[in-house]
Structures are given as structure tokens and as C-alpha cells.
């Protein structure tokens, strides 16, 4: 797991990891895009997303945390504040 000094570094790393895990183009992961819509999130893929976030940032989220977050920007903010 890498240490991030700048928030943008964390965002870039997360975008790349999420894009690889969910097999979608990075361009689709825009700050104001809906996480649920872009990733087709269901209960099981939510668990996968949490694992990706933990692997990249060291932040262990709960499923209920993520279901209340609508956009990627809000997700990045939440993770950054949790570090």
C-alpha cells in the first residue's frame, strides 16, 4: 500500500484500480458520476469495491458507508478524510 501526500495521487490510484477491477474505462469514472450507475453496483460488487479501496488506501470502509455516497468525488473525499 502506497502513502499518498496529495489527494490527487490517491484519486488517480483509486481510479486506475477501480477501472481495472470493474473493467471499465477510466474516463467513465468522473468526479460527478454516480458510483452505482458506473460500476453497476450490487451487494457482491460492493464488497469488491471495498476491497479495492482498502488495498489502495488502507481505509477499510463499511458497505453502509459506501451506499450513502453517491458520486466518486464524495467517495474520494470520504476516503481522504478517513486516512
Amino acid at each position, binding site marked *: 500500500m502506497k502513502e499518498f501526500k496529495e489527494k490527487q495521487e490517491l484519486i488517480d490510484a483509486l481510479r486506475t484500480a477501480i477501472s481495472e*477491477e*470493474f*473493467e471499465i474505462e477510466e474516463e467513465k469514472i468522473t468526479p460527478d458520476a454516480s458510483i452505482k450507475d458506473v460500476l*453497476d453496483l*450490487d*451487494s*457482491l*460488487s*460492493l*464488497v469488491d469495491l471495498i476491497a479495492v479501496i482498502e488495498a489502495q488506501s488502507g481505509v477499510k470502509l*463499511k*458497505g*453502509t458507508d459506501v*451506499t450513502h455516497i453517491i458520486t466518486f468525488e464524495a467517495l474520494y473525499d470520504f476516503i481522504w478524510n478517513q486516512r
Partner: protein
Amino acid sequence: MEKEKRSFSYRVVKGYFRYIINGLYYRKFYSIDTQNIPEDGTPVLMVSNHQFCLNDALGVLLSVNDRKMHFIARANAFDIHPLFAKFMLWAGVLPAFRMMHEGEDALDNNKNTFHLTEQNLLDGRSILLYPEAGHQTRHWLGTFAYGYTRMAFEAAEKTGFEKEIFILPSCNHYSYYFGMRNDMLIRFGTPISIKPWYELYKTKPRTAWREVNQLVRQQIRSMMLDIQDLEHYDDIDFLRQSQFGKDFARSLGKDPDVLPEKLEADKELVARLADKQVQYDDVRELREAMAAHGLTDRQFRHRPWPIGKLLLLTLMLPLAILGVWPALPTWFISEHFSNRMEDRMFQGSFLLAIFCLVMLPLSTLITLLAEWPFIGAWALLHAAALPILCVFEWNWFQFLQKAIAELRYRRYGAAIRPLRERVFQRIKDLIIL
């Protein structure tokens, strides 16, 4: 592949359900394109839209006659009662745990359900599940979860991608959700082999899931009534259920009293309404005016004869009194419990479950025990007639409600009729070619 044996008790219970559900509970039950179901011994995941709790699954159960069906159902259905949970497991139902309902910690329990389902598939069983992960309350197709595509591909992976797994899209549809003596329809689509996606799955599993899911979803949508304009859902539903909807079906050469034909006409109606971007303000006004006076479109369709109806009801009263047992306790008990449920879609399933699983067997036993000492074998005849008496009672009360509504129509109908005619003519001018 060795076929799964069905126990004697399974066959008896299924036969009982067939008699009660096909024969009594529904007015008409349609099972369409059953020839599309792959033969027993083929690994099949049946995937359907989900409208109506238990009723949907029972519809498929009664459409598939040559094998034991397996199901995946929401885990909280197992919490209703321990006896019901045992019955579900015996009937081949496995629980699916969802984060929003059973919580995050419960998700781990799905591993067992996935494992057993994948094993069932590899053993050539047929499994039914509902990827919307919960029933809808409308004629609408919700978002699919990908659990079923995971299971299908993981099962194939366990055989080194040697075994061909099929997904069979199916759809269910009801003439009306609540109460008895409605029509139900189950239609099976074309089986989709996931074998062409095996190579893609090895490197990009989610892309393979998405592509398969898209095909499955397309098939289900093409078979069902999917009213996507949720903002005007009630107005559109009112139009299709009204005389306007019936006339529209006839204009297409369809019989509005035959559910499969009505479904096709409704799909066309919904498509045309969307295409013409119809405004619904006056439809809502009409709907609300009818509701305010306890009327439905039914009273406007035919020449009302409430006095004749009431006379007929009086003539039938002796038989209605005979049917009070066990019909009224059944309705009262199911009403009592189902009124406490937040989800209205559970009420119909609850009524069906109480009627089939509890009240009919119980009342048959009570009738036999209470009457045998006095009338001997005649008690058998009475007990055998109980299901029919229940249906008679239901129809008698429906007829009574119609008579009362027609009395209301005599008082208020004339004031609403011009608005109704205006609205129907406006929509007709817009959408009927």
C-alpha cells in the same frame, strides 16, 4: 446426467398446489413457450422479473412438470416462521442475503448458497432466481444484480469450462395483483448458452457478466409489461385497465379478456403513449374523481343493474351462508396479518399461503372431526366442497361490491361521464392510427 428423483411427498404437495392454485386461486393460468425449457438434466438458471413474492415462484413451479425445481429466495422469507423455513428448504429453496436487508455481515452466508447452487447446476438441476433482488410493486423491470451471472460462470469454471451452462429468461404477468380469481401468465424466453463467453470470462469476468446480463435483460423486457414512466405510472396503468385499454386491444385485433393478448396490446399501448409524449393531467383528474366517489372504470362500461344484482345475491344467500365456513375465517385471518405488513405485495402471497397451507387443510380437518359423528360420510362431501365454497364466497362478495359500486355510480356517474369521454377521445386521437 442422472435425473433428480422427486419424492412422493413432493409430488403430492405439488399436485395439491396445482389443484388449489391453477384450479381455484387463479381464474386462468397461462404457461407459455414451455417447450423452450431445456430438458431435465441440463444445467439451467431460470431468471425472471419479480412482481409478486411467492406467487411468481409458484407459477414457475407449476409450469415445469418433469423435474424438481430449485429456487433462490430472499433470506428474510426464512424468518417468517421456523416451520415455513423448513418447508422452504424441503421444497428446494435456498436463501440469498442482501446487504440492504440482512446487513453486511450476513453477506458471507451467500458463499454457501453460491456453492450449493453451483453444485446443483453441475448436477444438471434447474434453478430459478430473481436478479432484481426483491419484488417490484409495479409492472416495471428493476436493476439486476450480477449474482446469477457469477454463479453461472463460476459453475462452468469448476468444470474447467467443459460444461455448457444455460440461462433461461422468463417473465411473469398478472391481470391484477390483489385478491383471488385473477389471471396469471408465465412465459419462457429462448435459452442462452454462456459457453461463447467462456474465453472472455477468463480474462474479463465482469465484461462477460455484463454482456450476458444485457441479453437476458433484453429478453425479459421484450416479454413483460415494463412501464418506465414511473412519474405517470398510475395514469398509464389506469388507461390500460380501463375501457380505453380494452378498446385499444380490440383495435389491434387482440382479445382484452385473454391475458397473453392483453399483455401484447398493453405493451403496444405503453410504447405509443411514450412515443407521443402524452400529457396526463386530465387522466389524473379523472382517476381522482372516480376514486373520490368510490368508483372504478368498470361501472362506466356496462349498463348498471344494481337492483338485479342485489336480487341475485339474495337468491344466492343460502349458498353464501354455507360458504361462510371456512371462507370468512380465511379472509379475516389473512386480512388481520397482512394489514400489518408494510409491503402490500406480500398481502396477496400471504393470502395464498394462508389459504393453501393453513386454512384449507385445517378447516378440512375440523369439518371432518366436527361433522362425522352427526352426519357420517356426508362430512366427507362437505369437506371436499370447502375449496369450491371458498371460491363461491369470494365471487359472492365481489358481486356484492360491484352492486354497491353501481349504486354509487347511479348517484355520481353522470357527473364524471363527460370528463371520461373527453379524456378517452383525446388519447385515442393521439395514439390510435
